[in-house]
């Protein structure tokens, strides 16, 4: 494709609403054209609780993004998250009919349908069905069975689903602005597109996106998604904890956290920190760090627990990638290392054209990732369109890496 395409990623986060306009050039390189962001309101724990307030923020962010990128935004890729989002792995099997030897597109669709047919609560809908591996007549890990000869086709899928109405509310909120929502993407799925490179995915990596209201994670082993999820705890909780324990307003708690706090108990100096604005009131560094440490440990343990159970932690050759705004918190890397027992690095997006402060900052991993996601989705469309009108199969993205 010689034509360059413009995509827009929108993340309505707990702390900020962020719109990124990106251009994908003919050669596949991404250039960030503009960013609009606005402190968020009406979002709690990653979910919209007050659509009208959110729309106000959205308007602002949108106006800025349009102004800076000089692009009129009509449709966006929307990142969604929230504690209601669950994921699971499931395998589907079909028998390829006898008079037909080669596996064709219809078979792939059918096996996907079967694999997706997992018992999810009635109110849930699918967000992503990500292919992990195909098996043809017992042969393992076939990347692309199309055209292969075989009688039994099996497929492992990673299925991410969430409560339909909650997702629809997010979409509705954006559509009322009005902006069309081209597709919804589970936040860590988007972030992984730019934070993890193919090598990391193949060797095994865990991406933890510690945001304001939620902590989302996605785990890659052998180049495919094996686990993902959302813990509805984030930086907001830490601020809230400090405010509640020290009995100070949230704004001061936030300042304390950012300027003086550390999630790690290492290197704690025994000093008193004056709380700004509260004359004469001080807090011991140790107490502050203890509050933050307790929360950080609990938060990361909640992420670690299911992965530990599935035995995935041992397979993470590339270790852990921390991203998201709260990953900027001092000491959180140390805590993560303690809990997971594997190397941890803080990461933003991989390099692309545009203001480097943008993709290097872990705060923007998800929205930038949405651009990449959109690009990958579009790349496979021409190929897929003949096979499926649905155009919603994302096999290539995760199956083949980049």
């Amino acid at each position, binding site marked *: 494709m010689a034509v360059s395409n413009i995509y827009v990623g929108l993340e309505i986060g707990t702390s900020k609403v962020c719109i990124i306009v990106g251009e994908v050039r003919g050669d596949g390189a991404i250039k960030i054209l503009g960013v609009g962001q606005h402190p968020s309101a009406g979002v709690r724990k990653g979910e*919209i609780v007050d659509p009208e307030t959110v729309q106000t923020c959205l*308007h602002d962010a949108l106006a800025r993004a349009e102004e800076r990128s000089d692009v009129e935004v009509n449709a966006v890729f929307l990142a969604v998250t929230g504690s209601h989002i669950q994921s699971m792995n499931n395998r589907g099997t079909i028998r390829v009919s006898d008079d037909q030897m080669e596996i064709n597109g219809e078979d792939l669709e059918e096996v996907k349908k079967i694999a997706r047919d997992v018992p999810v609560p009635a109110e849930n809908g699918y967000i992503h069905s990500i292919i992990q591996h195909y098996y043809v007549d017992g042969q393992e890990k076939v990347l692309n069975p199309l055209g292969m000869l075989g009688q039994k086709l099996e497929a492992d899928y990673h299925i991410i689903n969430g409560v339909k109405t909650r997702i629809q509310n997010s979409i509705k*909120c954006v559509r*009322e602005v009005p902006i069309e929502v081209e597709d919804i993407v589970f936040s860590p799925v988007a972030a992984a597109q730019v934070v993890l490179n193919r090598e990391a995915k193949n060797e095994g990596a865990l991406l933890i996106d510690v945001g304001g209201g939620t902590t989302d994670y996605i785990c890659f082993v052998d180049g495919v998604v094996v686990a993902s999820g959302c813990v509805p705890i984030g930086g907001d909780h830490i601020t809230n904890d400090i405010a509640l324990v020290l009995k100070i307003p*949230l*704004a001061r708690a936030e300042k304390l956290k950012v300027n003086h706090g550390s999630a790690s108990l290492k290197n704690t100096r025994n000093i008193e920190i004056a709380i700004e604005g509260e004359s004469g009131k001080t807090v011991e560094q140790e107490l502050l760090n*203890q509050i933050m440490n307790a929360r950080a440990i609990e938060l990361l343990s909640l992420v670690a627990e299911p992965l530990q159970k599935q035995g995935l932690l041992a397979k993470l050759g590339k270790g852990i990638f921390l991203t998201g705004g709260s990953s900027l918190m001092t000491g959180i890397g140390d805590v993560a290392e303690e809990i997971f027992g594997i190397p941890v690095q803080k990461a933003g997006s991989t390099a692309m054209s545009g203001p480097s402060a943008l993709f290097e900052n872990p705060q923007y991993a998800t929205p930038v990732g949405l651009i990449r996601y959109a690009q990958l989705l579009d790349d496979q469309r021409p190929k897929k369109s003949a096979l499926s009108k649905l155009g919603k199969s994302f096999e290539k993205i995760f199956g083949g890496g980049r």
Partner: protein
Amino acid sequence: MIEYNHMEQGEIPADSELGVKVIGVGGAGANVLDRMALEGSDEAELLTLNTDVRALSTSVSSDKIQLGSTLLKGMGTGGDPSLGKQAALEAVDEIRAAVRETGIIFICVGLGGGTGSGAAPEVCRIAKEEGVFLVVFATMPFSFEGARRTEQAREALEAIGKYANAVIAFDNDRMGELIVPKDGVTQAFAAADKIISQSIRATMNVVFRPGIIRIGMDDLLSALDSKDSRCLFGYGLAKGDNRSHEAVEQALKCPLLDKGRLLNDASAVLVQVAGGDTMTLYEVQLVMEEVNKHVGDGTQILFGTGTDKRLGNSLSVTIISSITGPEGGQTTGSGADNDEEASVSLGGVLPVSSPFTAEEDEAVFEEEADGGSGDSFLSTPEESGESDQAIFLEDAPEEGDEASPTGDDDEGDNDDVSDAVVPAADASVDEDEEFPVLAGLEIDDEESEEDDRNPIARAVEAAGDDLLSSEPVFGSDDDGGVDRVEAVTDAEQKITLTRMVSDSNASPFKARLPEEIGSTSSDAESEVDDEALEGNLSEEGETSEEAKQQQEMLQLEPISGKGRFAKTDPTIVDGEDLDVPTFLRKK
């Protein structure tokens, strides 16, 4: 420096010994009064004046005066205004006694008939002679009542206009549009009465309700101040999730506003938003956005907001304005030719000075008049109105269709949702009420200043993620935004401020003032602002009772519970509520 009384804004304090009186003159006036009594009116005395003793006896108002008891012997006037006038003159002493010692009088009258058209101008004259602030709500007859009555009504309106401080004229023809044609006559008239009674009540509330951003009589006058005009009036009251939207809708639906279309031509629009304790800043913002859609760019918006416990969960929106020009003439229907001749009387605002010169409270009212005509020292409220407008306009564009309520199906508990809306960090609802106070103060201080960009930075920095994220965020690019954000930043100090308010003690505020004024305002303005703020403080004193009640909660909330997550779905893992600080749970 201009010396003036603190009542310069033409406010008549609700607690003043000079009460409020609503006088109904004639049959139509009595009907409106009955309607008011029916809906319950505790703050005003109701007085019915009528010639027809039978009609008078069925009236439910507390005071009644029979007009022309010897002249007409308890009969009506038979539609003759001259008889009505004589009847009123016969009872002049009684009327005078009734209006004396009253702060403000609302007169409602149906013009066109004998008693209304004849007696009302006399009552107005007497009231004016007693130095009472007078607002007249007059209904013009239906066009089918004939040209003669229309003519009588027009003459009477003109006469009333000479005496009244403000005249709000309702056109019965337009009232008729309120109801479906097949509805009974009773309903038609009842609807008309209801609108008028609502208007009176709303006007009273606008002026007397303790306001966070308060609207004074001067605001009312400047909203009504346009020559050759007619009054626009809209009032809406709604409760429930979508109350802000519904209330505006309802207000705009009022026949006088013609679905808000007429607002476009208005030069000044007064909007008051009032609600119970649960009213949020965001709702106010929504209301203003909606209103802004209907208001032209050049229109001055006089904005006020206040809380009134009696409103409970309801939210009320009052829109008062006046328009000039041919549009007014066209839409006046039966009174089409009135507008040329009786323009002044329809204009609502009249030169107030002459009737007052002999009175004791001259100073107050003269300044009021000044305020109405926008004299320099009273520019503060107007400008604050404008800066409000700026804020809300900033947010208004692109709103496409009305943002319909998605809150309903959002989370399980509606209350939760609406509370979660509430931006305040620690204590949700109560603190919110403080925001407007702060915002108002800030605006008073800074509205005229060139933008000082630093405050944004400061505010953003100070507020950090969480205050901003928990705010309905105003466009922080414009000046208005700066003010708001600053106010938000100050939210940290909300608790302290509330304490000051609750002590009814002005000094802590004063202590704050000099630095702000010194940094932002020129000397001349600072004096004015200082005074204006003192005015504000005295109003705050009125609300101190409420503030005291809130204070307890403000102190208690941060200590226990889950802080900002108190209103969200709990996150429970292994039987532990994760919203409670880990540090406290593990201890």
